[in-house]
């Protein structure tokens, strides 16, 4: 089993990543065409040290294709009221079936993100529409964080927060 890069995911950061943030993930095709998709929540598996993100499958066709081909994934988490932004990159992304608690995680995420944006003046209907997706159309992508960056707007944006140990390749991964 790979060792969990616990340095990267301390409890405060874990709480941050699983809150009501704006989450967007990117990858790229072999030809270097970037793909992009909005995620509907993030779950942290502390034992495996992996992050699991949820997407609406019809929106994530290119992203899933690119990320599962190369394993490369970049995910930006941003808290709208504070602009605090973290980017996490991985090299071992893989498609993962939804398991117990995943749907509850997406439901909680929708509520938290809606609450955050309603506070900023958006309507709840607007946020719910943005995050609308039938349960059966949700897909999960998981990856081990290999690099972590402070992406909060400003000159310091892009600063590595810490360097991770060499990314543990998931043995027997798809």
């Amino acid at each position: 089993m790979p060792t969990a890069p616990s340095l990267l995911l301390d409890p405060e950061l874990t709480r941050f990543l699983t809150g009501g943030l704006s989450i967007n993930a990117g990858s790229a095709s072999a030809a270097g065409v970037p793909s992009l998709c909005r995620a509907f929540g993030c779950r942290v598996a502390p034992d495996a040290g992996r992050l699991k993100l949820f997407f609406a499958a019809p929106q994530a066709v290119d992203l899933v294709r690119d990320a599962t081909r190369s394993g490369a994934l970049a995910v930006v988490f941003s808290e709208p009221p504070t602009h605090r932004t973290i980017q996490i990159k991985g090299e071992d992304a893989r498609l993962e079936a939804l398991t117990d608690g995943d749907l509850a995680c997406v439901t909680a995420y929708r509520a938290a993100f809606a609450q955050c944006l309603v506070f900023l003046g958006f309507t709840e209907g607007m946020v719910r529409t943005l995050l609308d997706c039938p349960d059966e159309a949700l897909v999960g992508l998981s990856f081990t964080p290999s690099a972590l960056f402070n992406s909060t707007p400003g000159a310091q944006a892009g600063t590595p927060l810490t360097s991770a140990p060499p990314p543990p390749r998931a043995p027997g991964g798809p």
Partner: protein
Amino acid sequence: MIPVRALRDCLDGVIPGVVSTCAADGTPNVAYMSQGQYLDDGHLALSYQFFNRTHQNLLANPRVTLGLIHPKTAQQYRLHLVYERTETRGPVFESMKAKLAGIASHTGMSGVFRLLGSDIYRIERVEVVPGSTLPAPSPLVDPLLALRTCMARLPTSPDAESLLDALLDGLQTHFAIEHALVMMLDPRRDRLYTVASRGYATSGVGSEIHVGEGVIGVAARERTPIRISHVTSEYAYGLAMREGAERQGMGDLLETEIPFPGLVSPGSQLAVPIPGAHEPLGVLFVESPTEMRFTHAEEDALVALATQVGGLFRLFLAELELGDEAQPGVAREPRPQGPPLRVRHYAANDSVFLGDDYLIKGVAGNILWTLLQDHQALGRTHFSNRELRADPRVRLPDQSDNLEARLVLLHRRLAEREACVRLEKTGRGRFRLLVARPLELEDMDTGA
């Protein structure tokens, strides 16, 4: 394909766009963009503020995928772009810089948001992302119809003052814009002064701001419209000016003697320069307590209106050059009776006080002082704009100065103060001075 109107709505900065790029080694990067600008059907510009990973990536691989969300319908779009170049000067850069300055000053990011360049991209392909959407709300007004109706009345205005009234009435009636004002540029002092307003508790006629200050001042300096959809109240003009006045000494108290009339808690603001031959003649400013009140289409309409107003103003000025001389042989009017009022003029800033009440300063103050001197010494009551333009005592900054706007300002200030001195129009480019009380003129610091 994404309709142009939807693309412009998405780029308005209400919901930040997301930019996905890819390094030469295939490592992806995702970042938020602060500001995007529609250029034409095939191009858009994104703000370049820091030399970050996004910028490093696109120098190696020019392909970018931009994620946008429509702020009203929640429809998501993905634009597949190819980076072409970065502009660090010219109209696109200046326009984005001004808008970013407005955004920054209104989000507390003034020290953080600085435009290094405008990255110009070619739009290769647009993807409509599948997902739920809300119905697009039907707009409150049809801006094109409102523009047509509003424009129809402007050229029938006989003078600058009725032109400004027609403009502000039209905005209210046809665009449902309840809070609006027009500021004119005083190029010599790098200030803008209010000549007309609608929808405020006090008119604010005569109030001033510096060129470069806030959305109005930046719009004037950069000669570009600035539209802000979310305004934080801490940066509202009224408050900022009041606090500024408290920080400054007595010498500047006159600056804020006439308070700027702006809303205390504006949600949306739009400032549109009124173009002149060289420098802008002034700025048309509208605001609303509602956020996201003004659309791109309304900005288009107000730019068209301001262009017409600028043209008509210049026409008035040109007509003055050919206009009538002062009418000789007008019968002298009887001198007013009653207790005299002391009128003081301070040469240091050309301010004029009626009794103890501050009235006006600057060129408009000089105009009034000149009229009162001639009234006192020669018993004159009839004057022409043309002679004032040539009168060295008025000290106009230059021949192209907007004398009309200064007379509008003076006329309105006298009327609002219910002063014993009034101006009354008697014809194109001519007016009459009405003095209801005997005056004692005192030049306070001549030669100081």
